[in-house]
């Protein structure tokens, strides 16, 4: 299936979880937050939340600013 991770389209296997999507970008699990289709997925749910076709995944962290 096709999902979007941080704005880039990606082909991922069916059943890919949020945790697996995050690991494509980083091995970090702290200091990182995820939204799928503009809803926050809490860290405790990453392993049990499966992505669906055309989901938009945003993986954010803190950067210099403000």
């Amino acid at each position, binding site marked *: 299936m096709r999902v979007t991770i*941080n*704005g880039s389209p990606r082909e991922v296997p069916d059943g890919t979880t949020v945790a697996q999507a995050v690991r494509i*970008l*980083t091995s970090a699990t702290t*200091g*990182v*937050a*995820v*939204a799928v289709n*503009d809803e*926050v997925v*809490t*860290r405790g749910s990453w392993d049990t939340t499966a992505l669906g076709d055309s989901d938009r995944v*945003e*993986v*954010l*962290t*803190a*950067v*210099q*600013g*403000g």
Partner: protein
Amino acid sequence: MDDLIIAGEKFSSRLIMGTGGAPSLEVLDQALAASGTELTTVAMRRLDPSARGSVLDVLRGRGIKVLPNTAGCFTAGEAVLTARLAREALGTNWVKLEVIADERTLLPDPIETFDAAERLVADGFVVLPYIGDDPALARRLEQAGCAAVMPLGAPIGSGLGIRNPHNIELIVEAAGVPVILDAGIGTASDAALAMELGCDAVLLATAVTRAQRPDLMAAAMRGAVQAGRLARQAGRIPRRRYAEASSPMTP
């Protein structure tokens, strides 16, 4: 100097720092150390796998509390989502709420800001909204449950100082929550003036991070905030039109 208290939490420094504009994390680290700050803002952005080092490591190393902001948001909806992501990523329910109206001025949008503030307060956040120097809006945000108000001195990054000291005084007079002068500070005298006007704290970034010597300017800001606070507490003499002799006029 007396403590700054925001939402029941004490800070012995009244200088809140931003992290934007620093040429490197090393320069930022030195500037933060020189500033003596205990509370510092960060922005939330898409994770960049190629990025090396993290601003969070710098703050953690200095024992500085992190204050996530919603910089870059143009709508209440974006700001609420960003605040929730920051809470999840950073484990804090504090947020500097920043909803800007346009990229040219970066002025805060009062309607979207108020809408987001109400939603975030209801969701259990400690909300510190960045606003124009508008006493009416400051009062409404306090009534809505915000933990502080953060009026601007001048547009972000402009270094123009405090363009409307009268309005800042009006906000201070009416406020029951801390007033934090945010944005527009260019040099130390601007920060001192903010404190002399009665602000409880000053938030600045660019004035330090883009100074030729960030660590030196950070030390200057630290001293200015302290001096301004003391002067405010001391109570300045009235301004007079003519001289008033301080020595006896008779021989």
